[in-house]
């Protein structure tokens, strides 16, 4: 192999670099990567996760972990954060910059072992009170997109266990068929319901869900005098612990 690089070619190589990088995108990206911004984002995410502690998916996946305490002590790390919005490409002055990146919350300890929760599509916006030309240094407030915390969330590299919500409408609408609602319907309903369940209004959603689950149970137990009560019990009613 010929390893001799002709010296004459070197300057040519150096000067044939690509066009200079986009200055405005860099500025917005720098804002996304500010340490103080990410610090506030991590506090905000912690607070949202704690408020959503009633979320059974998260709690059950980390069975036995004291979530608020673990979150308070967790080490949070950000993967490469970048600008998420084409608004930033328009250039300064900036009123708002939307960023996205991946965030890891490390809840591991020696009793529970590895518990690393990763949100690969976290989104947050940096808001400036007045349009600024210096987003990398100006004072800011942060708003985290709460749904993005759970979007594609991973626990130790695997997707979080999915929660199948109660589907009372599917069951009651098919009294004679008795059993399986079509899988496709259940999946999209589960997806929609899962997204709703992960809403930032945490407790309100949880209260509603609990009320609905209890209403379902009361409905099944009360068994109104209608043809529906003559249907066969579902597999879930027969075999699942309540």
């Amino acid at each position, binding site marked *: 192999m010929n390893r001799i690089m002709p010296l004459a070619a070197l300057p040519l190589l150096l000067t044939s670099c690509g066009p200079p990088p986009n200055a405005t995108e860099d500025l917005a990206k720098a804002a996304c990567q500010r340490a103080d911004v990410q610090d506030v984002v991590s506090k905000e995410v912690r607070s949202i996760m704690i408020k959503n502690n009633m979320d*059974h*998916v998260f709690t059950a*996946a980390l069975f036995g972990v004291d979530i608020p305490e673990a979150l308070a002590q967790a080490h949070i790390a950000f993967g490469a954060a970048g600008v998420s919005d084409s608004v930033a490409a328009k250039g300064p002055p900036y009123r708002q910059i939307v960023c996205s990146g991946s965030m890891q919350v490390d809840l591991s300890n020696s009793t529970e072992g590895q518990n690393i929760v990763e949100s690969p599509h976290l989104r947050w916006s940096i808001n400036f009170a007045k349009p600024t030309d210096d987003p990398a240094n100006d004072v800011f407030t942060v708003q985290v997109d709460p749904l993005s915390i759970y979007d594609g969330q991973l626990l130790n590299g695997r997707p979080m266990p999915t929660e199948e919500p109660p589907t009372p409408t599917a069951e009651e609408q098919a009294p004679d068929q008795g059993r399986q609602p079509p899988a496709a319907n259940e999946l999209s309903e589960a997806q929609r319901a899962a997204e709703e369940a992960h809403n930032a209004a945490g407790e309100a959603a949880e209260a509603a869900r609990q009320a609905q689950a209890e209403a*379902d*149970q009361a409905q099944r137990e009360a068994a109104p005098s209608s043809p529906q009560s003559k249907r066969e019990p579902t597999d879930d009613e*027969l075999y699942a*612990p309540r």
Partner: protein
Amino acid sequence: MAVAALILIAAAPMTLANANAQCLDPTVRNLAAQLVEAWSFSYPFARVIIGDQGHFGEILSPRAVETGQDTVVCEGTYQLVKIGKAGNAYRVRIDSFKYRWSENTTGYRVQLEDLPATLDGTNLSSSDLIARFSIDGRPYSDVLNENKRRIDRAKTNR
């Protein structure tokens, strides 16, 4: 002489340390958990309490209970934290369950040893199977009885 000694070594049964190592191997345990998941779809009750979350289960305290030339039967506890449709989470356990590791020409395979794919042709009944399961520490048969009472109450409340 040296050649004969080599053959002898090759034919020696697996040591207990090696056997336990196979049972403990995380990949092997992972495969065992996946096998339990697949198995669960053959029984309506298992599909509900394990089903497609089976691969999240863990094999606890695995140890070799039988060793052969190139096969090991391991015994451990299968444990899964299952999330039910009602949004509740419960711990499903099979306190003693066996899986087999065996070497073959292309590598190794893992099989379930004492969870039959079907009860036909065995002398097991479904209550035998059910007796092996516990939910949050209680026998699963208690849960089934509770469910049955709840369903009966609902029927008679008409």
